[in-house]
């Protein structure tokens, strides 16, 4: 018999909890503990962030990733979690125009910056962004799960370089995996977007 998870596991866990300043109290889960025992100088949880041109107030724990805030606090589920480890690009969003992995950036790190997600690209009258339009015309997406990330990477790319060569587009889009293998179609989309954009 091999006990897999004996007392030491618990000890390590408890150590972790204490270390993280969230010793389990009996009240409302973690919030109270987090709020009450914060050391001086640490970040304030209640922040205002600029997402898709709107300033939104939101309660963000210090360690929360941007993708989590967007998806689970702000309901912006267009930003996908494919790996949660910065290995796929499905969570790509723009931070001050720079494509970044939302799963691998803290919300607190970007609270002073402009965040754009796939939901914020359409114009006020509902017209698709040129990248979105081109992706539809070229039928770039297959399963679509990586598409929001591809769209954001393409928008970021075209803002920095409005008329890329196909090779430049390929290099620029390289941080996004498409498991369906639609790279060729996405590149067609980027090139078309550069034309119509």
């Amino acid at each position, binding site marked *: *018999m*091999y*006990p*897999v*998870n*004996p007392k030491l*596991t*618990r000890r390590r*866990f408890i150590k972790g*909890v204490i270390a993280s300043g969230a010793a*389990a*109290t*009996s*009240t409302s*889960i*973690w919030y109270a503990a987090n709020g009450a025992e914060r050391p001086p100088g640490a970040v304030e949880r209640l922040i205002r962030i600029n997402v898709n041109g709107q300033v939104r107030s939101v309660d963000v724990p210090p360690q929360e990733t941007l993708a989590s805030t967007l998806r689970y606090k702000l*309901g912006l*589920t*267009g*930003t*996908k*979690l*494919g*790996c*949660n*480890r910065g*290995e*796929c690009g499905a969570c790509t969003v723009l931070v001050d125009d720079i494509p970044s992995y939302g799963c691998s950036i803290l919300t607190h790190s970007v609270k002073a910056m402009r965040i754009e997600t*796939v*939901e914020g690209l*359409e114009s006020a009258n509902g017209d698709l962004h040129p990248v*979105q339009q081109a*992706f*539809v015309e*070229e*039928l770039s*997406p*297959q*399963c*679509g*799960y990586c*598409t*929001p990330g591809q*769209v954001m990477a393409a928008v970021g790319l075209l803002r920095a370089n409005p008329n890329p060569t*196909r*090779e430049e587009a*390929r*290099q620029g*889009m*390289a941080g996004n*995996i*498409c*498991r*369906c*293998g*639609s*790279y*060729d*179609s996405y*590149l067609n989309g980027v090139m078309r977007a550069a034309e119509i954009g």
Partner: protein
Amino acid sequence: MAYMHIGKDFVPPDAPGKVTGRIKYSEDYTREGMVYARLLTSPVPHGRVVNIDASAALAMDGVVGILTADDVYPDGEPQSTGLKILTNEPTLVGEPILAVAAVDEKTAESAMALISLTIERLPFVLDPLDSLREGGADAYTGGNTFVFRQGFAQEKWTSDQITSFQNGREPSAEPQQSWEYGDLEAGFASSDFVYETSFSTAGYPHMSMEPRSAMAYWENGKCYLHGTSQSLTALAEPMANIIGVPLEDFVFINEATGGGFGQRSRAGSIPSMAIPARFSQKINRPVMMRVTREEEFTIGGARQGLQGWIKVGFRSDGSMAAMDMYCVSDSGGKGGGGDANSAAAGVSALYQSEAMRFRNTSIGTNTGHRGAQRGPGENQIMAIVAPIMDKAAEALGLDRLAIRKMNAAQNGDVSGSRSTPFTSAYMPEALEMAAEQFDWEGRKSRSRQANGSKVTGLGIGQGYHNAGRSGMDGIVRMLPNGRLQMHTGVGNLGTYSYASTSRAAAEVLKMSWDDCDIITGRTDRHLAISSPQDGSNSIFTNTRTAYGAAQDMLAKMKEIAAMDLGGAAADYDIDGSRVYQITDNTVGMTYATVAQRALELGGKFTGEAEVPEDLNSLTALSVSRLAGSALMGIYHDPRHAGNPPGFAVAMIEIELDTETGKFDIIELVNIAECGTVVHPQGLKNQLVGGAVWGIGLSVLERHLYDPQNGIPASTGFWQSKIPTYLDTPANIGTGWVDLPDPENPVGARGIGEPSMGSVSAALNAAISDALDGHLFDAAPVTTDMIINHVAGISEEAIPLAQNNFRG
């Protein structure tokens, strides 16, 4: 034939939702009171859970409950190698043992550390040959193999038999499975070139972009499951069975699926979706179970690895006279598959070997869940056989294109163990088209030319998969406003086939696409059964049903018209959403009017009578719920005859740097031979996507387990090496033969799988070509293998080993 919709591009209704992020995948849903489940998975490759003490976890703030195998299998776990919902008998690291639900994921994860799990460790094995060897460990408690209808069994070879196999000789042990046609001995006797080798192909994970997250809740006795699948209705009924809820009380919601390559086709390979469903039932809260990338690796399925021996004989004219193949298939810790059998059938179909023998033994290992993955078997073996074809061409002094044409499948040809005839086959045309687009004649002189450390390699690859089924159902409805409702059960896995197959109905009814609605996404929209969407069959299978349902509606519309306007139904034709008299087209009625009349008439017109008797249960349920709502076209598709093949041909030019083992793809074309083209953009996506997958199989992807401990090494995208933009060419040429298949009403056959096998074969052949025809007899051929080969190093890899990157 001039079609209105078939062969034309259109905007699939889900495309805008994909580019705006508005379309919802299972994890994008939320529900009042929802709690979050996380999985506690097996830390050992093989073991038995002896005790679970969750008292401390359950006492933790925010923890709502746990769900164990005892909860989901009160009468004991099913005895099979199939993946379980939860298990007390894990046979791979990462297999789900229990789930914890809490108010948030962080709490659920923290609670897991408080659960005391006592596991008895059992012997484990990671390579089929280690298990086959006398005295080797067995992956399962009852043996190392599972025989259909018989159960667990033990299969052992002598050490000599294993060693001889590893040394490239024909295995002498009795196989579990075999078939044969033609006179093998005579075939080899008449051969002028015979090549014999052992080979290995590695398994690797599916790694769909969307992890198999699911959310479920119960309301008024009904179970609502937001899940992910590559089939919609085909998966729903067996999923209801796994959950244990009657079909009529089960609603499966699945608007979009983040990639399906075989392992989301059938409920049995994705039983984890039952966890939130059963959990929700137990704790009476909606339960969201987000699945991590690592979990997707372990339970998300992987291709089978093959360790095999192959012997091929060619006559001096290049014709393949005989092919003998013996495989040991890696069935993993759960699941299994028929890759070896498909591999042999694929060789038979593509190369038309006159005599053929296939033998196989499937052995379990305590590695990831296995099952069908894009071109299971065919695509691995084509990467092995293509360089052998080149070897034969070289030995016989033939052009590499010519030897393929010589053996190419044509109309009237047969293949496989039962010598099944093709419904149609145009491989020579496909080869011709590829050669032209690629400029084979112009490029072939560049073969093996060196430029500094770089050497040019050319490769031709062919892909095949049996690509069509039948026997499913179709439902279409015409609303009184004249809109056509196409109730498709085809899942949305990214091929757009749910939409393109539905267009066959619009085609029959000659309707403007703007007047058509595709009804899909959730089973309570009353959909028709579709076949499981694997095996490249959707386009063939479901255009038949859409077409048939529309034909049924067309007949009913003519009948109503004849009833109201006089004459016989045969006197009527349609156009512009009108039914009119052929002799006087001013006499007629709009579809809207016909639909209104149908509602008045009821009976068979609205699905309330004369419903086809042999409808599948799910379709019958949908029809009964739709009955009386509109004019209905209902159809049960009879079986077709013959084997509808999906064929593809790829040609590749690479420049391989012998100093770094890396290569650039200079040119790549991938040509489809899949009958009439229904949706060019969709087909093109299959061809480019297949190419990327083919590159992954041939040179990159892997599925690593630590041989010492059985723990998985390649749980993320990084270590499993999913191809990126920069590992694939910036441009992929595509094209299609576009000749109709007689067994399909619009002439279509499938393509998803062969479009990959063609490229994996061509790339392996090109690498071999660049290395002076050296055969690795393995897939993938990785950077290190190429460097070692060039440097003359024979690394200490175990021959035929499944479980290291050397392959």
